[in-house]
């Protein structure tokens, strides 16, 4: 479903701030795979997601989604294939627009936006039904401005928006990091459900090792712009936090104490 082939990206090349964020990185995702991505600060996790989403062009390599080469496509054109949820709950929704208007914008992801009416009656019914499955009481607040919602509610809404028009790929960029633990757990549970119900292929970055172990069907660990660990299937199910720390120390050659700090 997703093929990242030998992708490299260097920020601020030729300056003292030069940073090699992705080094000849390759990654293949089969349809329906749900991959969690872990790694310390500056490991290149977000850079990987942004490269796939097309936030900026990569320096080399190719990115294919469901067989289509999207390497040269700008961000808004790739959006036809990709649903995204960001770390900042403010980033995924338009605060001064209504809940139904936000959903209607998401429903038209990748479609031509013409002069037909922006939100239809039939759509509203569908939104109401979908919102009621969230159990947040949003189904009665269709005409409320999204800016009135809490961070957790906004992330839940963004998740719904990302999957409304079934994406070939779902990118979750630490989408629970800014939430309190209880809300984060709920939003993660919702993510699991949405991925399972729609049989989505997903990449989820997390800072939390427990979450990375408990969710998804495959786990990759990044370090200095490379994938240093890639575990799937039965092996992933048996994986523990201790294993991860040990293997990280061995592979990255870093002191264990610092890892614990990084992954705490």
């Amino acid at each position, binding site marked *: 479903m997703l093929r990242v082939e030998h992708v490299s990206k260097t920020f601020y090349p030729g300056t003292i701030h030069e940073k090699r964020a992705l080094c000849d990185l390759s990654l293949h995702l089969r349809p329906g795979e749900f991959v969690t991505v872990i790694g310390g600060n500056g490991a290149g996790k977000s850079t990987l997601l942004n490269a796939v989403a097309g936030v900026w062009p990569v320096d080399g390599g190719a990115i294919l989604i469901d067989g289509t080469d999207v390497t040269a496509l700008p961000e808004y054109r790739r959006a036809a294939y990709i649903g995204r949820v960001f770390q900042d709950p403010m980033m995924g929704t338009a605060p001064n627009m209504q809940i139904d208007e936000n959903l209607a*914008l998401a429903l038209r992801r990748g479609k031509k936006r013409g002069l037909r*009416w922006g939100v239809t009656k039939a759509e509203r019914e569908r939104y109401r039904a979908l919102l009621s499955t969230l159990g947040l009481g949003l189904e009665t607040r269709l005409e409320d401005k999204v800016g009135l919602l809490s961070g957790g509610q906004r992330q839940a809404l963004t998740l719904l928006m990302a999957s409304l028009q079934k994406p070939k790929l779902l990118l979750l960029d630490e989408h629970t990091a800014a939430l309190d633990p209880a809300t984060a757990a709920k939003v993660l549970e919702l993510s699991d459900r949405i991925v399972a119900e729609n049989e989505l292929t997903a990449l989820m970055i997390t800072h939390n090792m427990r979450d990375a172990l408990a969710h998804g069907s495959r786990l990759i660990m990044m370090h200095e712009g490379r994938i240093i660990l890639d575990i799937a299937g039965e092996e992933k199910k048996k994986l523990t936090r201790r294993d991860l720390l040990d293997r990280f120390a061995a592979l990255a050659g870093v002191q264990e104490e610092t890892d614990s700090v990084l992954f705490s």
Partner: protein
Amino acid sequence: MLSLPNLLTRLPAGVAQGIVWGVMALGVYITFRLLDVADLSVDGTFATGGAVAVMLMLSGAPGWAALLAAAAVGVACGLCTGLLHTKLGIPAILAGILTQFALYSINLRIMGKSNQTASVKKFGLFWETKGRGFLLSSLYIPQAILVGLLLTALVIAALYWYFGTEQGSALRATGANPHMSRALGINVGNMKLIGLALSNGLVALSGALMTQFQGTADVNMGRGAIVIGLAAIVIGEVLCDVCFRKGANFAVRLAFVVLGGVVYYLVMVLILWLRLDPNDLKLFTALIVALFLAVPHLRAQRRESAVRRRTAGKEA
């Protein structure tokens, strides 16, 4: 001596002028409020609209054709600013200033000199008349108010429709959250182009209306238009909040922007009636706009500090 009858006779003209500037404020509203771009080209496009209209009327074109042509030229001016901004990466404010600066020369070229006079009375707005037709002219103020209101209602209806469509929603989303918009497949650059074009089209239309109202176009007629537009917007929004505490429908909010233009002009009439120096008007306007634009910020700050005090109280 200040005489009240004198004031009352001056008010209707202020209303008519306010409505015309209200149309221009609707244009500014599109960029400033919906697109979140401060577009300074409007000072130029307002005069361009007037210049195009006056020259067409002088050459015998009917009033409505002069209005349409002016709006079309305004759209082109907006596209210029938009292309400078989106394709050449020039910051929006600077792109607007460049267009405005260039338009000064272009407006002089259009008119051949710094001002031109053409009475709309001779030509009529929608049909040939021998005076007292369906005109927007300072010669027949009550009729001018009526025509102005009808045209404004048409513009508001069109804007209400457009911003309810898929494309109009995408344009609003671009202003509200460009990040999200790109992630949802919206071509943010194109939306800015469309918004700037629409906005400047309306501003030029307003310039053409003003030319018909006063019978002349002047190369300096648009000076400070952006500030008057902002004044109309902030006054209108405050009035709207007072009248509709729970928030109002989009069309109502647009109507209040035009009302803001009217209120602004009535205040100007009042200031002139009080025999204050007209040269001070721009200073007053700037102060009013600065004050109203600052209010939301100051309110938020006060709320924040109130919360802080409360939490501090709890801790203590």
